[in-house]
């Protein structure tokens, strides 16, 4: 059965990707919130936030990219949920195909959709004055971290996709993830926050990821944050993947 894994997964991914290419509104609704946040912060609040010599749009773009991913993966959960409840999932599972390919197809589709959304948001940021000193290597590093973060959150999204009782339930898990960057170094420096909030902000995953990407965009050497960021992403990926696969197997029992 595994001999057809690549072929089956490719066919299933092709089918799932049509949901992106045929209803581009999922990309639009994914990027509209991050873009609105970007506009609000750059033109309304940003002037009052002291980010030193860094322009505010440069300062907050990494956080906005994380928000983009967090809102993008909620669609992954919704698409998976639709297959679960619509009967397609059972049809695939009763066929002689690589069973895990059904999940991987959704995961790969999620990566493609999020890459598209991220590109759109970066282009809008460029229009709003975002400039980067990053070289090719630094851009690749940014892309790598964002992909890893997307992959980790996508496997997290698989869990509600498989277990939710309603569409709303399948997408609601993303809200806390969307808000996580707000309580981090993404929009304002953490040193003005009250002690408890600051402690949380400095030790949650968004801060290390944001700081790493910000350094890369600025063309500066990254500090120890990069290891913390990678550890968060890898840890989350391992835990979410393990749980998702466990739930998936149980669903089939």
């Amino acid at each position: 059965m595994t001999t057809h894994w690549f072929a089956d997964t490719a066919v299933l991914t092709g089918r799932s990707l049509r949901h992106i290419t045929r209803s581009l509104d999922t990309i639009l609704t994914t990027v509209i919130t991050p873009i609105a946040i970007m506009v609000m912060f750059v033109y309304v609040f940003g002037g009052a936030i002291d980010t030193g010599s860094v322009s505010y749009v440069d300062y907050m773009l990494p956080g906005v990219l994380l928000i983009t991913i967090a809102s993008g993966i909620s669609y992954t959960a919704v698409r998976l949920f639709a297959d679960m409840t619509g009967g397609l999932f059972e049809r695939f599972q009763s066929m002689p195909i690589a069973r895990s390919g059904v999940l991987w197809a959704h995961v790969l589709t999620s990566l493609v959709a999020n890459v598209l959304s991220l590109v759109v948001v970066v282009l809008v940021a460029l229009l709003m004055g975002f400039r980067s000193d990053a070289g090719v290597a630094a851009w690749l590093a940014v892309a790598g971290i964002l992909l890893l973060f997307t992959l980790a959150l996508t496997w997290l999204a698989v869990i509600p996709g498989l277990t939710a009782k309603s569409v709303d339930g399948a997408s609601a898990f993303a809200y806390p993830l969307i808000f996580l960057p707000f309580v981090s170094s993404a929009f304002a420096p953490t040193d003005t926050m009250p002690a408890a909030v600051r402690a949380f902000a400095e030790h949650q995953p968004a801060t290390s990821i944001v700081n790493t990407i910000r350094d890369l965009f600025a063309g500066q050497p990254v500090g120890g944050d990069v290891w913390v960021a990678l550890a968060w992403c890898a840890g989350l990926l391992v835990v979410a993947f393990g749980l998702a696969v466990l739930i998936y197997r149980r669903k089939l029992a």
Partner: protein
Amino acid sequence: MPAIQVHGLRKAFAELDVLRGVDLEVARGSVFALLGSNGAGKTTIVKILSTLLKADEGAVRVNGFDVAAQAADVRKSISLTGQFAAVDEILTGREHLVLMARLRHLREPGRIADELLERFGLTRAGARRVATYSGGMRRRLDIAMSLIGDPPIIFLDEPTTGLDPQGRLEVWQAVKALAERGTTVLLTTQYLDEAEQLADRIAILHDGRIVVNGTLAELRQLLPPAEVEYVEKQPTLEDVFLAIVGAAR
């Protein structure tokens, strides 16, 4: 060897005993109807037969393969049309068929798709998204998807539930055509006339067990012989409906 053999099948969900020792056999090339009210456990049986659920107890063989130990071989032998048309709103009818043909690793998926569209009267609708299809069209597409790769055994779980009378007739014709080609069909239904129309053998599932199993003639003999009564034959509402609407087709 029968196409389907079930002996002593038991399945419970938490505290609820759904199947309490089900025995049945389905001969090759026959249409077998599993009749039962809502919640009788018909879908549970179909899910166990199609390797989607594991049995608690009992021996279940499909096409000679054990559903637990040889699940992959079972999946190669069967096709499942579930209780709700398993279609993707965003794809066209033709794309569904091509998708299935690719997943079954067949050559010329496009040609296979076109043939099936033709056979199920969907050629004109083939390029449209399924979101625009009627219930009957979805069901026909759903069944067409199940035929790809010519599996010897097909499960149809309540194929006509929720369809209008025309859609129902369309599905019945599709099932009859399957039987003519020698495919073994196990269908579940809660409609008595459906079983009567389609099935070679009928089993009634009640309280987690098969309480009756036989041909229609055998089932009729369970009741006292028919009395001859003269009743003025009024057309049923279905006759009227089909006479008016069906004529337009």
